[in-house]
């Protein structure tokens, strides 16, 4: 039985080699060659010219992630405290907007934030001056938060519901105040959820190119836009595009490596406390 079963994964192995491993090899190949196909470091080196775009992407992605965490944690906590039946309804409600295509969700904000949009019309109606919102960095962050906040709430919720109530009661019996219980027991125990939430928001936020295009105008170029331009845009240059993709991947891998380190540390620490 064993050898037969192993053979079943052979088509998958072949498929993934062709469609995952080989494309990655091609990205690396393009990144290190010029248009004639000879080896060069020029592409990688010229990525440095775009350091401002990289910094902007990381900064906006980090701000959006932080806002998602600050807004999402209380919500996850509130949901986790509800009776079981209402919990599942609330979780459904958090997930439902995700079922709508994210282009349409972002488009909805376009119509709200425009200079002649609904928010400005409302401001106008109560006699307030117009506020320019679309095509700003703030609008891009708003779009990221709106699109990705469910990815923060859901892992936080699933960790928070699993916290053993008796641990919290034990802390209370030992004289901890409510705020202390929250800071010293609930928050540390929810760390795995925080970490997966942060990665699930940060990775798509950093690499997005649609949100910045639709809500950020031309002035808020992100890494994703830069890559898009090299492959399907005006600045056609797959070699440079591959180099930028490679750098983006390395940045993300480093971020995730740091987060995982943090996670492991927390885990072992927690184990120590529990024992």
């Amino acid at each position: 039985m064993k050898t037969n079963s192993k053979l079943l994964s052979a088509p998958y192995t072949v498929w993934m080699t062709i469609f995952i491993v080989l494309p990655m090899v091609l990205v690396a190949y393009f990144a290190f060659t010029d248009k004639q196909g000879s080896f060069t470091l020029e592409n990688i080196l010229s990525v440095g010219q775009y350091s401002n775009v990289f910094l902007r992407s990381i900064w906006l992605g980090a701000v959006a992630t932080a806002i998602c965490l600050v807004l999402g944690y209380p919500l996850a906590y509130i949901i986790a405290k509800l009776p079981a039946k209402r919990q599942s309804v609330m979780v459904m409600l958090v997930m439902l907007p995700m079922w709508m295509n994210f282009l349409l969700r972002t488009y909805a904000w376009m119509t709200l934030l425009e200079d002649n949009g609904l928010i400005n019309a409302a401001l106008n109606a109560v006699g307030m001056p117009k506020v320019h919102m679309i095509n700003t960095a703030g609008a891009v962050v708003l779009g990221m938060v709106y699109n990705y906040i469910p990815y923060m709430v859901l892992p936080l919720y699933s960790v928070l519901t699993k916290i053993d109530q008796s641990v919290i009661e034990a802390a209370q019996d030992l004289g901890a105040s409510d705020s202390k219980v929250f800071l010293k027991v609930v928050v540390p125990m929810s760390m795995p959820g925080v970490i997966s939430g942060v990665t699930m928001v940060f990775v798509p936020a950093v690499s997005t190119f649609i949100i910045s295009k639709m809500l950020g105008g031309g002035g808020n170029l992100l890494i994703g836009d830069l890559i898009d331009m090299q492959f399907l845009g005006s600045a056609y240059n797959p070699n440079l595009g591959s180099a930028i993709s490679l750098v983006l991947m390395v940045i993300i891998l480093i971020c995730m490596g740091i987060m995982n380190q943090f996670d492991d540390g927390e885990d072992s620490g927690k184990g120590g406390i529990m024992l």
Partner: protein
Amino acid sequence: MSRTVGRLYTFLIFLFLYAPILVLIVFSFNDTETASRTVFSGFSLKWYEKLFEDRLILEALRNTLIIAVAAAAASTVLGTMAAIGINSLKRLPKRVMMNITNFPMVNPEIVTGVSMMLLFVFAVGVFGGRSLGMGSIIAAHITFCLPYVILQVLPKLRQMDPALYEAAQDLGCPPVKAFFKVVLPEIMPGIVTGMIMAFTLSIDDFVISYFTSGTTQTLPIYIYSMTRKRVSPEINALSTVMFAAVMVLLIIVNVRSSNSGERAGKGGGQG
């Protein structure tokens, strides 16, 4: 006191999540000549009429459905086979396979899309033939759906008692029949969930399709080109239709799963 604060907070977050969608839906019924989105000038279904007369949209919808069905079917079969294979591997090769499986899920979508575009362009350079189109989109969709199927099926295999399969064989059942009669019903819930996930992910995908489609239009790609050109209440109408479709689908799935939950209690899932 703190309960009221909690309720207010939840209400505000849900307002933030749903207000834009509500505005979108309300203005899809707006009766206006210009594409004004600030004044509601009366109820009308004309944007829906325009939507269903738009041949390009209907063609994009057809493409999207063909791709989703093909990608879901292929990734379900390949993924289930792979999960069974991976489950019987030893520790080290298992870890290698799981890392490759997880890779597309953690890799930024845009990089996956770009890398596959390079692959298809490269393949045309070597083998000739048509480069980007339905074929390349389907292949790309199968690739990003596979991990989701595998991750749904693997836990079911782990929960299953391996003695069941052996017992069937001891009782004289040939291995293939034992698989279909014993193993498959056990892991069926995982397979079905994986297939539904693959189907919805494929319908919803924009980034990877965008880089692998060439000139072929799918619904998300068409929506994207609509938002680039002009802002028209037709998009609002399309959003409303899609939102309603999702709601109906979710209700059906929920009703079905609660029904089959009861049936499963009485014995056996259905093939």
